[in-house]
């Protein structure tokens, strides 16, 4: 059995920013047993990259799983000693004294299968061929990811999560945990998510996929063999995605009609928004894998737990027994508040314990990653109550109460 004390590396060796978990070390868990997949195939063996922060308590009751969205990873909090600028994607949420307090909770971040940050995916070597999986890597679903996460929980000796938490696509994983592993989760924090994708959501994903697949350097997904990457496709995919993460309001405030250097009557980027999107696209095309992106957008499209209950979301959620915190943001048009309210309505119909916060925020879908006092206060309060119940840290464990 591995050690469960935090993967936090020698905290004193590197200057630690305020309230950061400090330098962290990613770990890899290897699984030899095949993972059956929704598509009918199975992954013969696989790796899951993960990080942990905080300490698992003796009763193993304070573990929290963080599920990531589209292109994030297991690097949720802290930074790498050799790359201090590489700060975890939810570092404002997770850390000592932060809303999810790593002095009370043992937090696990995991990279999903099919991604390209260390867990088995299209860039990994197919043991059957000795070559990268590439286009032959199976299409995965949210359920497949969650099944793999359950294997990791077993490996870490966590029978039941105190909470599973995620934003956007991560929230869908939390929802799936609640539905299919009800005995293994006490709280689900479903943030800026939706019970399934709308036609418009799928349409945006399809544009992104078309951008990638029609790039001449895509080579039907076997671009590795040609030593190229469909960068142009990835750039456009990221640009279109990025627009859906922002709000019109925020884009107007941030960029408006600002020009870089006046009108040039050319197709070079003239407006600041053009320049910004190109920059985001370039960055993404360098670090993300095209086959992984195609697959993760498909996992989003496929997610719809209500298909198993004839389209009835309430019945799909009937198996859930955990408490739910559902959070949405007023200017999110990718997964608008109305989609979160569908989840809440279904849970209320089943008389499940659910609270719902609709956060007034100007930042669109991205708001779930940003600082917002009310949002962070609600999440903090939720975890404080949990900590009190399980007696980790805080007033009760300190014997003050």
């Amino acid at each position, binding site marked *: 059995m591995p050690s469960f004390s935090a993967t936090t590396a020698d905290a004193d060796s590197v200057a630690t920013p305020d309230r950061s978990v400090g330098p962290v070390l990613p770990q890899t868990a290897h699984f030899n047993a095949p993972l059956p997949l929704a598509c009918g195939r199975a992954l013969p063996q696989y790796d899951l990259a993960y990080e942990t922060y905080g300490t698992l308590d003796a009763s193993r009751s304070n573990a929290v799983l963080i599920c990531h969205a589209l292109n994030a990873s297991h690097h949720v909090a802290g930074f790498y000693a050799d790359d201090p600028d590489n700060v975890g994607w939810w570092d404002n949420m997770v850390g000592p004294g932060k809303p999810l307090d790593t002095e009370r909770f043992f937090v696990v971040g995991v990279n999903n299968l099919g991604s390209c940050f260390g867990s088995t995916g299209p860039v990994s070597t197919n043991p059957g061929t000795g070559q990268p999986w590439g286009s032959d890597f199976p299409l995965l679903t949210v359920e497949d990811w969650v099944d793999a996460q359950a294997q990791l929980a077993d490996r870490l000796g966590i029978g039941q999560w105190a909470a599973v938490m995620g934003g956007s696509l991560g929230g869908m994983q939390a929802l799936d945990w609640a539905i299919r592993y009800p005995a293994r989760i006490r709280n689900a924090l479903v943030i800026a998510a939706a019970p399934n994708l709308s036609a418009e959501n799928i349409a945006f994903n399809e544009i992104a996929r078309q951008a990638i697949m029609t790039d001449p350097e895509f080579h039907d997904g076997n671009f590795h063999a040609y030593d190229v990457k469909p960068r142009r496709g990835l750039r456009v995919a990221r640009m279109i995605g990025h627009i859906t993460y922002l709000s019109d309001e925020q884009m107007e405030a941030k960029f408006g009609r600002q020009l870089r250097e006046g009108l040039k009557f050319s197709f070079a980027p003239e407006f600041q928004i053009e320049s910004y999107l190109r920059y985001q696209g370039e960055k993404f095309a360098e670090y993300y894998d095209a086959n992984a992106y195609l697959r993760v957008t498909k996992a989003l499209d496929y997610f719809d737990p209500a298909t198993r209950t004839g389209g009835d979301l309430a019945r799909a959620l009937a198996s859930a027994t955990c408490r739910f915190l559902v959070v949405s943001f007023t200017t999110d048009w990718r997964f608008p508040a109305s989609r979160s*309210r569908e989840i809440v309505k279904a849970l209320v119909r089943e008389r499940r314990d659910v609270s*719902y916060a609709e956060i007034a925020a100007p930042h669109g879908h991205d708001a779930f990653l940003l600082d917002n006092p009310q949002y962070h206060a609600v999440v903090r309060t939720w975890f404080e109550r949990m900590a009190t119940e399980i007696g980790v840290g805080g007033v009760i464990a300190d014997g003050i109460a």
Partner: protein
Amino acid sequence: MIRAVATAITPPTPISVSGPRVARADYATIGSWVADSAHVLDLGCGDGALLDYLAAQRRASGYGIEIDDAGVLASVRNGINVIQSDLERGLAGFDDAAFDVVILSQTLQAMRRVEAIVAEMLRVGREAIVTFPNFGHWSHRLQILRGRMPVSTSLPYQWYDTPNIHLCTVKDFDAFLGARGYRILDRVILAKGRPARFAPNLTGELAIYRFRKK
């Protein structure tokens, strides 16, 4: 002197419930009308104190609706199931007859669409409980006779900053329910925290109604 009249009404005696939180005068009456293990929806639940009270006294389950960020946060802190929503948008998030009782405690008078919310309450609940400050109280009448808008313990606002836009008297509310064919199951008008013994529309400060569709 208006202030003198206002302070003549002593606030209702607080009832201590589950620790430091203090129940309002209407809680005991509401609690006596809610059946054991009832499924309750509390509209405008604030910090969730009423639901907390009903859970403790009646083992009631259910949800609170609250629009205000601070109220939502306080409810989460108190372990109440709270749903952030604007009551003026109705109760579209809830099915017909989903609740045994729907409560609107001292909020009706601040709502824009009174008829709509009462109809919604009786759609999603079998019964409704509504409480409101009685505008017919003698001190209010006296202040109007003296030519000023009333300010009192139950209506502690000035005319220019009050959130209360639909004030009514006990007689008004009787007529309102009667005209819509709703049946009053219980009615208590509190004066100084106790049921008013005589002329409730004159002496009562807080009206508490339980009603349903006929």
